[in-house]
């Protein structure tokens, strides 16, 4: 096994480290601690955070990549597979490997379309993997499914109870943290996860797509792409937005003019056009330099990062404008005047007096932008200028499923699965963002 650190993996880990460090640091900052306590006290926010945490766990598992060693041939050096796998792939190996020929409905035992069978005319052929354990006893399918659902529910409860005891006993979140809603959300998620896990051992819970891949596997793999686009883009645009926003607001004069012209120009170019042009250019560069990439996963990763970069370049303007306006207000505050009266330098004033008083806006923008970017990725991939076609994402799933909506009977599960997961992710992010804004915005009604 050879560990393959993709660039996006490294950045995601870095981001997580930053979040952890930020959390550690904010424990010592009274105002931040107060605001986070407010977020913690909100039931909705904590439920949303639990859902987000589940998504993040899936995303992180999917970000630990490696190349498995090939079976040794003689005494030669160990050869590694060309395929890059992640920890999530390893965990979901049964799902990944059991692909069918083409479409099959959720929990089906037969393919979705009739085919010519050897000498028996046209019929729905049996699936190679879905429901194969039933043998010829197809009548037992309903009973089998019911059995698995019930066992799964039991498993969910069994997993939840220790968690409940642990929280109760250790008195985690003593005080006003809404642990009740965390436990409640965890309960619901485990109740869903248990049956799904057991069912997926024997069936394709969410059906299969055109080339027979399990849709559940695809949706789980899409989570990482969504998370990466949502977070890395903000990470890329944040320094530019903060730096330029504060400079424009505090220094003023020609610097302000220049930065304003820059973002007015960027804003007046239609966003999709700019992104399309940039993505296609990147694609040409990637295609003309195959020697840069050892595996196709690395190539797809480069394109994903390029997309983050491009989205970042086109989306810093809004935040920069917001920060500029706020800086214009802050620089007239008496405490900035007082610092100037002491002869404190410009840079020190920006760092000590302006930046800390802007952090709530930055944080709010960060969480608010996340859901918008996840949706933007879906739209861009649908149009064909998003991630690499080999990268599994909500957008590519929707793109692949769009033609099948016109079929009769309709192939709905691909789209429905992508929609449901994306909806859960974006809704959780939005609810969490709302709570964060309420807690951090000083203008909000207390």
């Amino acid at each position, binding site marked *: 096994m050879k560990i393959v650190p993709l660039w996006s993996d490294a950045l995601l880990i870095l981001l997580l480290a930053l979040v952890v460090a930020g959390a550690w640091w904010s424990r010592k900052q009274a*105002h931040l601690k107060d605001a986070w306590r407010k977020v913690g006290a909100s039931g909705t926010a904590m439920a949303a955070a639990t859902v987000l945490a589940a998504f993040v766990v899936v995303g992180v598992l999917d970000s630990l990549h490696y190349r498995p060693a090939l079976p040794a041939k003689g005494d030669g050096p160990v050869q590694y597979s060309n395929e890059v796998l992640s920890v999530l792939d390893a965990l979901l190996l049964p799902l990944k490997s059991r692909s069918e020929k083409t479409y099959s409905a959720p929990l089906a035992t037969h393919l979705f379309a009739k085919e010519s069978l050897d000498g028996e005319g046209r019929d729905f052929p049996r699936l190679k993997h879905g429901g194969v354990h039933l043998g010829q006893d197809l009548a037992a399918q309903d009973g089998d499914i019911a059995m698995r659902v019930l066992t799964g529910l039991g498993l969910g409860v069994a997993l939840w109870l220790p968690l409940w005891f642990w929280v109760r006993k250790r008195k985690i979140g003593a005080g006003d943290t809404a642990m009740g809603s965390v436990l409640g959300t965890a309960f619901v998620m485990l109740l869903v996860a248990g049956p799904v896990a057991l069912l997926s051992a024997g069936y394709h819970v969410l059906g299969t797509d055109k080339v027979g891949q399990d849709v559940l596997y695809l949706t789980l793999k899409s989570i990482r792409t969504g998370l990466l686009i949502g977070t890395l883009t903000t990470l890329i645009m944040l320094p530019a937005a903060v730096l330029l926003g504060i400079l424009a607001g505090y220094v003023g004069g020609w610097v302000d003019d220049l930065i304003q012209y820059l973002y007015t120009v960027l804003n007046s170019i239609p966003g999709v056009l700019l992104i399309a042009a940039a993505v296609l250019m990147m694609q040409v560069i990637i295609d003309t330099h195959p020697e840069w990439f050892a595996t196709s996963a690395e190539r797809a990763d480069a394109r994903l990062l390029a997309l983050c970069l491009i989205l970042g370049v086109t989306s810093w303007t809004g935040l920069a404008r917001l920060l500029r306006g706020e800086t214009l207000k802050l620089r007239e505050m008496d405490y900035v005047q007082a610092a*100037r009266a*002491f*002869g404190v330098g410009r840079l020190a004033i920006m760092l000590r007096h302006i930046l800390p*008083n802007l952090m709530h806006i930055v944080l709010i923008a960060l969480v608010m932008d996340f859901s918008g970017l996840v949706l933007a990725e879906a739209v861009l991939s649908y149009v064909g200028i998003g991630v690499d076609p080999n990268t599994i994402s909500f957008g590519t799933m929707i793109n692949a499923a769009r033609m099948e909506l016109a079929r009769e009977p309709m192939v709905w599960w691909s789209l429905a699965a992508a929609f449901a997961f994306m909806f859960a992710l974006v809704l959780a992010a939005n609810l969490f963002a709302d709570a964060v804004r309420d807690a951090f915005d000083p203008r909000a009604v207390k």
Partner: protein
Amino acid sequence: MSLLSVRDLSVSIAAGKPVDGVSFDIAPGATFALLGESGCGKSMTALALMRLLPETARIAGGSVRFGDTELTQVPERAMRGLRGGGMAMIFQEPGTSLNPVMTVGRQIEEAIELHGGKGKAVELLDAVGIPDAARRVREYPFQLSGGMKQRAMIAMALAGDPQLLIADEPTTALDVTIQAQVLDVLRDLQRERGMAMLLISHDLGVVARMADHVGVMYAGQLVEVAPREGFFSAPAHPYSRALFAALPDAARRGGELASIPGSVPPLATRFSGCRFAERCAEVLPACREAPPAWRDLGEGQRVRCIRVEAEKSAPATRRAEEGALAAAEPLLTVADLAVHFPIRRGILQRTVGHVRAVDGVSLDLPAGRTLALVGESGCGKTTAGKALLHLIPPTAGSVRFAGRAIADLAARDMQMVFQDPYGSLNPRLRIGEIIAEGMRALAVPGDHGARIGELLVQVGLAAEMAGRWPHEFSGGQRQRIAIARALAVNPKLLVLDEPTSALDVSVQAQILNLLRELQARLGLAYLFITHNIAVVDYIAHEVAVMYLGRIVERGQVQEVLRAPRHPYTQALLSAVPRVDAQGQERLVLQGDMPSPANPPTGCHFHPRCPRATAECAASYPQETRLSATHGVRCVLAGAA
């Protein structure tokens, strides 16, 4: 028969009671004033009468009878007819009370239509004394000055021909000369229309001028109710007396102001005895045991205090001896200081004119003395103060400090204390870091940690407060911290920009005492920028009066305040509502201060001057020296 009769009115917000058992009556045509510091529940009482309480608050009990109607019982529909029709309200901030996208006339007409009132918008505007009303009805709020907006608000309130006008701090946001105009308008209207008025104010002077009856509020309760004469000749409650004693004026010069320790208790406080007991100088053990009952002192004066018999006396006055005039070398010399802001127009941003915010100001300030720079808002006094420190680059003129010309940020020797104690401390820094900032930036030698503790003690706080955050402190304490920050770099001169105008009168007294004490101990010179004449009278040695970017009169405090020679100074002084000045002759100015972008020709003051002659419009008058220290820029002074 009273028009409005309030009995045991209580308002509750969550656990707290901002209004707790308030009872008073207002007779038709009379004025009742609610007096008290901020946070005492005055505005909440008014909003409860109008049933306009914020969502979180509700009337918890009591009755409000307006004529024959019980206001706490009527449905919201009927209440809407009463608001504006029976009783109307005007608010503190005229700027935000008018809709900026509708003409003034339209807004008044709307109120007329709503209540089926008589009269036209023009007549109403005329009635509130807006000149050229026919033109003004077609204008938008932004075209009116603050005083005119407040008068337009009054006109709107009159549209429904109300029997009761509730005025919530109607002149607090206005300058004294404008305040005088608005108060006169209110008084005349009241007389003409036989309208009753509930006046809410923290200003004893305004109350003395307007009220028939006074109710003093403290922590949600009325503590004293009295007719005006009785109240102002002999306030009975210790709180009322403390309010009088905390007022700065010439009589208390050099002495210490009686300040009330602490501040108004927070909303959720539970009281067992007298609410004022914690801050009362004359507290008895019995005060903390049971809430005091009302006691009748005769002539309509009632007080909620158990020990009033003996203490019913006029507020004590102390006169201290004035120190000898120090004829020292000036520490600060300012010559012809000017700050002009360019007005840019068009695509190329060409300069088409200048706002002459400060236009040739010259000052001298000896060490250890206080020079008060007095003027109304917009006269350029704050800009002048900031230009001294080069916080705003001056356009022309020179600033010399202790003989040296200052061409850049005068970091160490001059420091500034700002008006708003909430905006002047960075909320993201601890108190210690805030105070240390200047020492660090200027590399002041010594142990900064120890010095911070020392400074905190010096301004009346505790050394261990260095680790706390600004939001844990009240307005007065924050102002002390701001003073400590300025003192940290051992300056010789402090520019104090309205340091007490955002504070309540009792807290103002604490800060003024502190400033006086620091000056005596450290030999600091103060440039005290203010619009409050009473504070000037108390603390300043010299006064410079500013009007539209220029100093019109300057001199020793006795010379300028006792024998003012410039008509503007005279008008400014007579416009100040005084506690003890009943029936004094007043000089009410017409109109507003012109724009500094386009000042009048000749003497800037001549369009508003009651004694202007043709000569005044010709050229700006030279300074006439009346004594070694007293100078006036007015042609009349030279002639007299």
